[in-house]
């Protein structure tokens, strides 16, 4: 048995014993969530681990465990205990061991995955229909009894074939459904090994399929998903250059001698750059912060044949001899996102410590010494969990690049209103429709600063509002001479009585603050209401940790 401790240390996680010891502290503020756990086995250790990891991430979690082996009945029976309570999150964990038992007693093994898929489809649809709970569904870890040897992979009669097919069908089906996430326990088992994840004596004596020490990594991934559901996610990576994106120091070694390419350690840096590039493609903002002359750094991006990242991939390129602390603070001001949504990657432990000391909320992973381990280490950290992905994500880098041009152009005008006139801004206003709903939903999840009542809307919520006679959704986009911002604000209005509406929520992207957009929205709202014979508009500001910016907005307008 591989020493699990060695594997765990590599993944840089808490041990099971440590997790059990974490307690709520009086000096911290926790988000309270109600969680249900439906499983075919006893999950008391998993529950305790999830609570422990939750505490570390400022969640105060109450977990209700359904009686063992009642996954279907608890979900499908409207009178069940599960259906009589309200849960923010529902975790469903059926073990592959149970699945194998079912497979063993099935006559027609070839249709097994199809039948199980129908069963899961029904469970998922019922969960989605009956409440607003957000679901975390474990997929099936691989159990290969190798009855057919390697041939098992290509015969429909084998368990492994049917298990993999079921996993795929569930993936495919859930890709179109909101409010459900897959906990990829199959990948986790790949990382730590089935001999580390499964303890046969725990299984035989207590019916538990998970070893004690596999609970931390599983519960960490659950908390990562829960954080994403609660709009806590990383938006930006700040990268060092020397010995991070390439081997060696460009200022000393010169462009011909840095290690990047097909030979030796150069391969690892190429792999790392591909990994960063994929993150950029999915909407993570990439910035550079390096201690080098700017032209020397830029030159590598422009002229080195093996560079994977190009200048187009970088939203903000900061290369100078100032302190990285100051540089990062400036980057944060320009991007206008929280430090807690940034990740700083640097091979140099002194730079990392300096950032950790001076900017406490930013995430600073301790890169392993060997660059060939950068990608596996960072992927194990699972820093970039998400529960949404839309078209606007792909274009996010371009949005920030055009923003930078605007900011630079602003420094050419002394008077703010001249600058704004010069921008030549235009805004289109639409009612909620099926095309703008995904983006509006995402905007409501992401915006924290300009968010009057911090109400998050799922796509389903917005479809209801769109179809209802009692409410209006107004969607605003913005273009100027530098480019298109896309949809950047929305208003949800609820009719409270004849001739009166209440602003259920008003949110705006932090990228377009202080540009007069707020005034435009209010003016439009007044016109809209006049046209609809509405005489009174009521509104409210609900305080949250991040929206103090808009505390006095209504008074000002």
């Amino acid at each position, binding site marked *: *048995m591989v020493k699990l401790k060695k594997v765990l240390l590599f993944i840089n996680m808490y041990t099971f*014993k440590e997790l059990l*010891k974490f307690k709520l502290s009086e000096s911290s503020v926790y988000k309270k969530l109600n969680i249900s756990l439906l499983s075919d086995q006893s999950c*008391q*250790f998993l529950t305790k681990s999830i609570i422990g990891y939750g505490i570390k991430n400022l969640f105060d979690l109450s977990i209700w465990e359904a009686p063992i082996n009642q996954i279907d009945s608890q979900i499908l029976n409207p009178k069940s205990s599960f259906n009589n309570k309200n849960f923010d999150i529902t975790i469903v964990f059926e073990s592959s061991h149970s699945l194998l038992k079912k497979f063993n007693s099935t006559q027609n093994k070839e249709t097994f995955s199809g039948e199980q898929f129908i069963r899961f489809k029904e469970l998922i649809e019922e969960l989605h229909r009956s409440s607003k709970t957000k679901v975390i569904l474990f997929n099936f870890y691989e159990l290969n009894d190798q009855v057919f040897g390697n041939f098992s992979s290509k015969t429909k009669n084998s368990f492994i074939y049917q298990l993999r097919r079921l996993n795929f069908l569930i993936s495919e089906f859930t890709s179109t459904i909101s409010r459900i996430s897959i906990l990829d326990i199959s990948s986790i088992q790949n990382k730590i090994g089935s001999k580390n994840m499964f*303890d*046969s*004596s*725990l299984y*035989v*004596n*207590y019916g*538990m399929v998970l*070893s*004690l*020490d596999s609970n931390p990594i599983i519960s960490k991934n659950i908390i990562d998903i829960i954080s994403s559901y609660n709009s806590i996610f990383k938006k930006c990576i700040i990268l060092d250059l020397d010995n991070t994106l390439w081997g060696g120091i460009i200022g000393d070694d010169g462009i011909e001698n840095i290690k990047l390419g097909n030979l030796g350690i150069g391969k690892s840096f190429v792999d790392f750059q591909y990994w960063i590039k994929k993150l950029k493609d999915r909407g993570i903002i990439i910035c550079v912060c390096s201690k080098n002359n700017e032209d020397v750094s830029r030159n590598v991006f422009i002229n080195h044949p093996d560079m994977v990242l190009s200048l187009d991939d970088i939203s903000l390129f900061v290369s100078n001899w100032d302190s990285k602390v100051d540089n990062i603070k400036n980057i944060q001001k320009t991007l206008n996102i929280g430090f807690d949504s940034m990740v700083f990657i640097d091979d140099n432990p002194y730079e990392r410590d300096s950032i950790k000391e001076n900017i406490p909320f930013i995430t600073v992973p301790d890169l392993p010494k060997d660059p060939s381990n950068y990608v596996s280490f960072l992927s194990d950290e699972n820093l970039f969990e998400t529960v949404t992905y839309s078209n606007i994500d792909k274009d996010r880098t371009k949005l920030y690049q055009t923003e930078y041009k605007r900011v630079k152009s602003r420094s050419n005008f002394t008077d703010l209103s001249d600058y704004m006139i010069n921008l030549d801004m235009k805004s289109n206003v639409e009612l909620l429709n099926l095309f703008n709903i995904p983006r509006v939903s995402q905007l409501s999840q992401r915006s924290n600063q300009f968010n009057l009542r911090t109400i998050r809307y799922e796509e389903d919520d917005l479809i209801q509002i769109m179809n209802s006679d009692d409410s209006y959704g107004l969607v605003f986009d913005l273009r100027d001479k530098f480019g298109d911002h896309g949809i950047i604000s929305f208003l949800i209005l609820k009719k409270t009585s004849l001739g009166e509406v209440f602003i259920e929520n008003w949110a705006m992207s932090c990228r377009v603050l202080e540009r007069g957009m707020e005034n435009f929205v209010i003016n439009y709202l007044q016109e809209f209401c006049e046209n609809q014979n509405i005489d009174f508009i009521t509104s409210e500001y609900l305080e949250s940790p991040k929206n103090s910016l808009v505390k006095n907005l209504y008074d000002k307008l």
Partner: protein
Amino acid sequence: MERNEILKKVNDVFIDVLEEEVSIKEEYSSYDVDGWDSLTHIMLIVETEKKFNIKFLSSEIISWENVGEMIDCIEEKLK
């Protein structure tokens, strides 16, 4: 390893898992120790396996009546 050395190491495991300065005796069972319940029992077994770098059989775990019988089992495996 001597029997009393095994007992001392097992005692260390108990202290670590139960977070109490206990002093267990060979005749003790779960009735005699505060905090030794069905869940901590599992942790005690897993941590003991790690401490001595051994694996207990499922049938062995079920068979013990007290700490002494567990130590018998450990002694056998260390031979």
